[in-house]
């Protein structure tokens, strides 16, 4: 068994790593189906955004209490991973607490820090479960999350609580065994949280204790590897993608809309035919009808969205009962991406499924309700932009389908003929100065 354990561990680790790599590659491939027409310069400012938004969680602190709770889970996740490193080395080498001989007395200090964080994570996960399921918090109780998204959110919290519990159980059984079998379980000193469980375990035989200790150890690491592989199917993927997303988030003023150089040139050639190159090919499509027409950044953002709903809580359309919800825009885009990814996996290349993001996943009514006020982008802790997606879909609606409400068609014709959105004569533009 002692020879076999490292082999089983290596097999587990390799399988988990391979499966994660495969799924991550598929997601990357799917994201890169998007257009790549934008240059992302100024890496110094972009790294600053990664530090502020992703590492520093600056925008989370608009609500300091929730930000603090989230920070505990985040810090716990990052710091407890140092302990996971030891667990992995132990697993590979068949050793037990491999760092202990090297750092001696400091060992219990480190484990105590991990245990305190793990305790914090457990408490916060319970608080978050209560917030999601008992208290009424509008953005968490919203219909956007009906069904799988709500289960996903609860599952993440429960799994985290289970993982932390296994970590405590493993440490508690270990401490109990230290008094019985010091050669296999060298003394570490008492651990601040798990030592409280020792009195409960004293009643068990050494064999039972070893089963508990080993059982908790294996379940803990299997749980972590399983959770890693769950990430790509879950909203929890934000723990990875929040970082690149922050890097690529807009540096320009939020009011600036993405230019369409193809249309710009079309207009230029129409106004000044001498500038038109003889071989100019007319643009093929305008705006986005499906995910292939969106910028790859928007597609990555759909995978980064953790469905917190701060965007929709700030959206003037959502809060006044319109069908539009910016969170749903991100979720619908990801749903479509998942379907496209499966399609590609099955058929090697995408085979037309008679569906598009526009109409089948996001309706005209939703798109029409946006006031382009940027509240969603501002509210998002990592500055995802549902607005970019909405605008590209609107462009497709107008320029590909001529699908506009009649009032807008009047507005367009007024702008074109009278140079103002209302039906006034351009001759009267200075009249304000004449009247008293």
């Amino acid at each position, binding site marked *: 068994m002692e020879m076999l354990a490292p082999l089983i561990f290596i097999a587990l680790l390799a399988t988990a790593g391979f499966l994660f790599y495969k799924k991550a590659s598929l997601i990357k491939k799917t994201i890169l189906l998007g257009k790549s027409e934008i240059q992302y310069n100024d890496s110094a400012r972009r790294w600053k955004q990664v530090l502020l938004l992703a590492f520093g969680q600056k925008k989370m602190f608009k609500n300091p209490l929730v930000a603090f709770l989230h920070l505990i889970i985040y810090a716990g996740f990052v710091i407890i991973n140092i302990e996971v490193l030891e667990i992995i080395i132990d697993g590979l080498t068949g050793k037990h607490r491999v760092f202990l001989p090297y750092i001696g007395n400091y060992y219990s200090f480190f484990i105590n820090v991990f245990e305190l964080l793990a305790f914090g994570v457990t408490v916060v996960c319970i608080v978050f479960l209560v917030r999601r399921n008992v208290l009424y918090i509008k953005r968490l109780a919203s219909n956007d999350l009906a069904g799988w998204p709500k289960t996903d959110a609860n599952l993440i919290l429960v799994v985290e609580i289970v993982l932390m519990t296994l970590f405590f159980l493993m440490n508690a059984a270990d401490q109990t065994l230290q008094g019985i079998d010091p050669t296999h379980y060298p003394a570490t000193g008492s651990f601040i949280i798990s030592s409280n469980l020792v009195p409960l375990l004293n009643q068990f035989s050494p064999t039972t204790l070893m089963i508990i200790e080993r059982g908790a150890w294996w379940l803990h690491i299997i749980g972590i590897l399983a959770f890693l592989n769950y990430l790509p199917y879950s909203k929890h993927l934000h723990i990875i993608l929040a970082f690149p997303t922050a890097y690529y988030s807009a540096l320009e003023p939020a009011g600036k809309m993405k230019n369409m150089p193809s249309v710009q040139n079309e207009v230029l050639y129409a106004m000044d035919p001498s500038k038109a190159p003889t071989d100019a090919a007319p643009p093929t499509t305008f705006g986005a009808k499906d995910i292939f027409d969106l910028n790859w950044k928007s597609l990555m953002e759909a995978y980064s969205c953790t469905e917190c709903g701060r965007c929709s809580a700030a959206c003037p359309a959502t809060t006044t009962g319109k069908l539009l919800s910016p969170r749903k825009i991100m979720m619908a885009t990801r749903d479509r991406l998942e379907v496209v990814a499966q399609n590609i996996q099955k058929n090697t290349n995408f085979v037309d499924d008679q569906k598009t993001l526009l109409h089948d996943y996001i309706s005209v009514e939703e798109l029409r309700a946006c006031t382009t006020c940027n509240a969603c982008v501002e509210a998002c802790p990592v500055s995802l932009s549902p607005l970019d997606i909405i605008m590209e879909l609107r462009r497709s609606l107008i320029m590909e389908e001529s699908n506009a409400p009649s009032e807008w068609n009047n507005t367009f014709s007024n702008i074109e003929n009278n140079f103002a959105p209302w039906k006034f004569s351009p001759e*009267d533009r200075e009249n304000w100065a004449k009247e008293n």
Partner: protein
Amino acid sequence: MKVNTMAEMMASGTMPEYLFWVGCAGSFDQRAQKITKAFALILDKVGISYAVLGKEEACTGDPARRAGNEFLFQMMAYQNIQVMNAYGVKKIITTCPHCFNTIKNEYPELGGNYEVIHHTTLLQSLINEGKIVLKEGGVFKGKKISYHDSCYLGRANNIYEAPRKVLEILDAELIEMKRCRSNGLCCGAGGAQMFKEEEAGTTRINIERAEEAVATGAQIIASACPFCNTMMTDGIKNKEKENEMAVLDIAELIAESMA
């Protein structure tokens, strides 16, 4: 009121310091015309040299672009940039945050490079330079004023302080609405919504915003955008508070207070 056009200035061989971009609302909307006049009055009193494009001004294309009609936007942008570049325009002031945003952020990559200033920013610097002198006593002294953030000034362009700093000289009591600055609630007009009926919902956006405005107990809602002004005025009428509250542009508040 005598307002010079760029064409007249050019004919007389002079160039104004600023082009005053009036915008469609400021030119044609009866309510917004008052804002335009108030701002022109301030410019005259302070002695700033400016001119308008008059008949040569056309919609910036903002509502067309945001509705999704990029062709129309590009046509309008092309036309406006041709006109402004022909006059050698360098500095532009405007009372409309939508025009401000489009000319400042979206015209440069189409060949229109200008220094664009919103009127609240200009007013703030005029105040800092001591060029705006108010009447004795203060017309709005002690009045409760609440400033409604325009999305295209605030979140779109990070201008939150200039309008508030301008209001400070009125010696009024400034109250913030529940959602203000970067959390400010839209009036409901942006993204070409001004020109169509709202989608079905539980309430209208401008009514929701008006409720917040009413809750402050302010006598004056200060706006910095002609579209916000319309939406807030309608919202307050809907709440039947039009006799207790007025929606006034910051330019109007300053113009009325100036000596």
